[in-house]
């Protein structure tokens, strides 16, 4: 028989964990909340780490999700520098890395994801970096001096944003990508080509179809990236950004169903009714896409699932389903993507790609808009969100016609 508790334990104090704690108080949860985080910092925003924070436009204080006094005022117990090491679902009990144990009424797993590590020779050399935490970002900022050479392994969002920030700081950047194009996993070919051209115009070198054989060092620090074709890319630091892996081991060991992410429903509930999971560590259904399941590594997803979990726990109606969206800032480009083009058969360009102000509409065979990728085109992004939500069917000719306003397209 489990010892009864009226406490909510939140494992993970990132954007998801910090937000769900605050939302539980907003929705009237009166009893104990314990927020457990492995990092030494209270919850902070990760997106600026590769953007405004890295280039010095945002300071450390502005990263904090809430002021430190908030947790005290809201009676949220913060346990930092500690992680949950074991869950005993039948006892409703967790064990922490410092040896303490705690009973819970509800447990929320917000364990996030970690940078994928590739077993390359030289991976342990100094200045071989990843970018996940504020501590990682500190190390990267320290090496990005004018004239320094950064090699970026992986042409995803983290890699492209870091390369753009490196250029803004006067450092050199080379992006090394295994696929034939950057952003291959997350964007369409037109967008990949646009970003490749733009980065090259800003002085970034991009190596495509390029495997990495090893990281080579001098005096214990990385000095170059050896490509599979034998060439050496000399560098002062190497940033490895080849995707994220969900932190699901804790859940797996407790017998909670996982499948490349902790499986949750639209209330963010796992296979154990007392245990919820939110954010990067989950695989979740997408109600606007026939409940396909997917891992969404994004702040909006973390916040939506935080709302789902807090609403379910506090007995409130579930929040309105949101369409997945993502954003990225590089140089003076703002990329905003809404929706996911699972069944898209056609891409329609609206605007002027050469002028760097355009949107790509992804249409399914019946003309339903599934996703919109917008570059410096926020009206198209916002209008696209409404069009997708309302399942509007549009013709390619009308979308491409700039004489038809977004208001008209969305009406």
């Amino acid at each position, binding site marked *: 028989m489990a010892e009864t508790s009226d406490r909510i334990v939140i494992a993970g104090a990132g954007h998801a964990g910090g937000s769900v704690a*605050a939302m539980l*108080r*907003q*929705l009237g949860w009166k009893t104990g909340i314990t927020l457990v985080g492995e990092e030494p910092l209270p919850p902070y*925003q990760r*997106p*600026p780490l590769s953007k405004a924070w890295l280039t010095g436009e945002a300071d450390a204080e502005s990263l904090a*999700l*809430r*002021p430190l006094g*908030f947790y005290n005022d*809201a009676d949220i117990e913060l346990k930092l520098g500690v992680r949950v090491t074991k869950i005993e679902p039948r006892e409703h009990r967790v064990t922490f890395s410092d040896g303490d144990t705690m009973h819970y009424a509800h447990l929320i797993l917000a364990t996030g994801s970690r940078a994928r590590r590739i077993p390359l020779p030289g991976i342990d050399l100094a200045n071989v970096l990843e970018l996940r935490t504020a501590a990682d970002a500190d190390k990267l900022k320290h090496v990005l001096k004018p004239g320094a050479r950064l090699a970026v392994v992986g042409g995803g969002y983290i890699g492209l944003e870091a390369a753009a920030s490196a250029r803004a700081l006067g450092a050199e950047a080379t992006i090394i990508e295994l696929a034939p194009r950057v952003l291959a996993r997350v964007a369409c070919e037109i967008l990949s080509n646009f970003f490749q051209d733009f980065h090259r115009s800003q002085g970034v070198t991009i190596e495509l179809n390029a495997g990495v054989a090893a990281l080579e060092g001098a005096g214990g620090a990385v000095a170059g990236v050896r490509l599979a074709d034998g060439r050496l890319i000399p560098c002062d630091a190497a940033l490895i950004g080849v995707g994220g892996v969900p932190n699901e081991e804790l859940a797996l060991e407790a017998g909670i169903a996982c499948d490349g992410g902790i499986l949750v429903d639209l209330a963010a509930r796992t296979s154990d009714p007392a245990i919820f999971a939110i954010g990067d560590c989950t695989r979740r259904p997408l109600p606007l896409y026939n409940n396909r399941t997917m891992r969404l590594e994004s*702040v*909006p997803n973390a*916040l939506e699932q935080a709302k789902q979990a807090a609403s379910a726990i506090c007995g409130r109606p579930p929040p*309105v389903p*949101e369409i997945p*969206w993502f*954003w990225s*800032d590089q140089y003076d480009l*703002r990329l*905003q993507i809404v929706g996911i083009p699972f069944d898209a058969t056609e891409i329609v360009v609206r605007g002027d790609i050469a002028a760097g102000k355009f949107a790509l509409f992804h249409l399914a065979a019946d003309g339903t808009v599934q996703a919109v990728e917008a570059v410096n085109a*926020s*009206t198209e992004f*916002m*209008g696209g*969100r*409404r069009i997708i939500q309302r399942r509007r069917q549009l013709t390619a000719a009308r979308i491409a016609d700039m004489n038809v306003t*977004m*208001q008209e397209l*969305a009406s």
Partner: protein
Amino acid sequence: MPKITFIEHNGTPHTVDIAVGKSVMQAAVENNVPGIDADCGGECACATCHVYVDAAWIEKTGLPAPGSQEASMLSFAAVTQPDSRLSCQIPVTEALDGLVVRMPEGQH
């Protein structure tokens, strides 16, 4: 410190203190006022910190410039009105002490 009052869609008021130089959105987030999601953290990228500025204050806060990033983002935000603003784009000044803003029914 200037005081700002947020009125939830259901009429519940929240009056909070906020330092000059922060944004009206930060005043809500730092004080856990419900109804301001602020997904993007103040980058004017998401339109989830949408508020209606009280008529008495619209002259002091101003409206988004036509064609601006804020105006674009507001063009399709949930239930916009002529007095709609994105609260992350309103910097707090002494002149805004006493500001009253209302929240839309939802941010999505």
